[in-house]
């Protein structure tokens, strides 16, 4: 089970093999969790991660072996994160009306505020990057792949991946500067 490919495990899970599903879960929990941490506020990370795996069970039958399993899974991750922000924006619009009439929320301490600000700032900059920049950063930080492994997965040379990574970080810096 440990040596089986993701695609083989996914096929077995589609046929009802619970162990195969949990093998995939164990393989991807940390990576999905890391990806979610990079994109949503800390207090929502667990909920969003849970929603992603529930969506994975519900849509397992729609996975066709034409694409890699992780490509398909990360599509679900991105969709669930987008859904989270859509829901949050809807709720915030509703809450703003209440705040206008009831007053401002409690202000956190300066240190907490600075840390949260820094975190939000880098998160926001990351969320506004083009897809290929986000992906190379996620593969290195969230998935824990080495640059050589990223090159292999993307079908690019090691030099090209390192260059893409530097441009991605420059884009994060530029986005943060624009705020």
């Amino acid at each position, binding site marked *: 089970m440990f040596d089986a490919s993701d695609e083989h495990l996914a096929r077995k899970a589609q046929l*009802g093999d*619970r162990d195969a*599903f*949990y093998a995939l*879960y164990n393989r991807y*929990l*940390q990576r999905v*969790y*890391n990806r979610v*941490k*990079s994109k949503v506020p800390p207090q929502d990370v*667990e909920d969003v*991660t*849970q929603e992603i*795996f*529930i969506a994975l*069970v*519900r849509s*397992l039958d729609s996975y066709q072996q034409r694409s890699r399993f992780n490509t398909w899974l990360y599509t679900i991750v991105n969709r669930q994160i987008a859904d989270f922000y859509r829901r949050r924006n809807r709720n915030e619009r509703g809450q703003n009306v209440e705040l206008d009439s009831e007053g401002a929320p409690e202000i956190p301490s300066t240190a907490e505020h600075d840390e949260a600000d*820094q*975190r939000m700032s*880098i*998160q926001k900059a*990351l969320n506004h990057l083009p897809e290929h920049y986000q992906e190379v*950063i996620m593969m*290195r*930080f*969230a998935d*824990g792949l*080495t*640059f050589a492994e990223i090159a292999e997965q993307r079908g690019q040379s090691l*030099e090209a991946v*390192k*260059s893409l*990574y*530097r441009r991605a*970080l*420059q884009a*994060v*810096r530029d986005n*943060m500067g624009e705020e």
Partner: protein
Amino acid sequence: MDENRRLDDELAELTDAIIENREMTPSQDIADLAEIARGLRDLIEPNTPPSASFDARMKNRLDMEWEQRQRRMTRMRVTPAVRMVSLAAAVVVVMVVVIFLTNNPSEGGGFDGTALGSPDALIAVVAVAAVVGAAILVWRNRR
């Protein structure tokens, strides 16, 4: 080695060090990008796994979801026995229709003035209906 290549390599090496919590001083050329890489490490905390309690809650919730999925699959599954019974029922229905249409004494069989007035056309229509019915059964079973 050109300048860009040198900077790419240095940043990649520095990133590895940052993720592994190793000390490494960046050159002035990439000092600002090193800060971004540290910020990303602090944001994502790649070496911090989800808590055991969260993992346990997740598995509990996923078990429930898995059970529901299995129940749905069982309901949808058409067993060979069900398929044979359905096929037999369809054949009986077709035969009853054929007998009714070809042996109605008051009308002499068939529907005058329509394509079904001819026995050959009637057989063709029934055959097509049977093929379509069988195809639907096979298609449903494959899904």
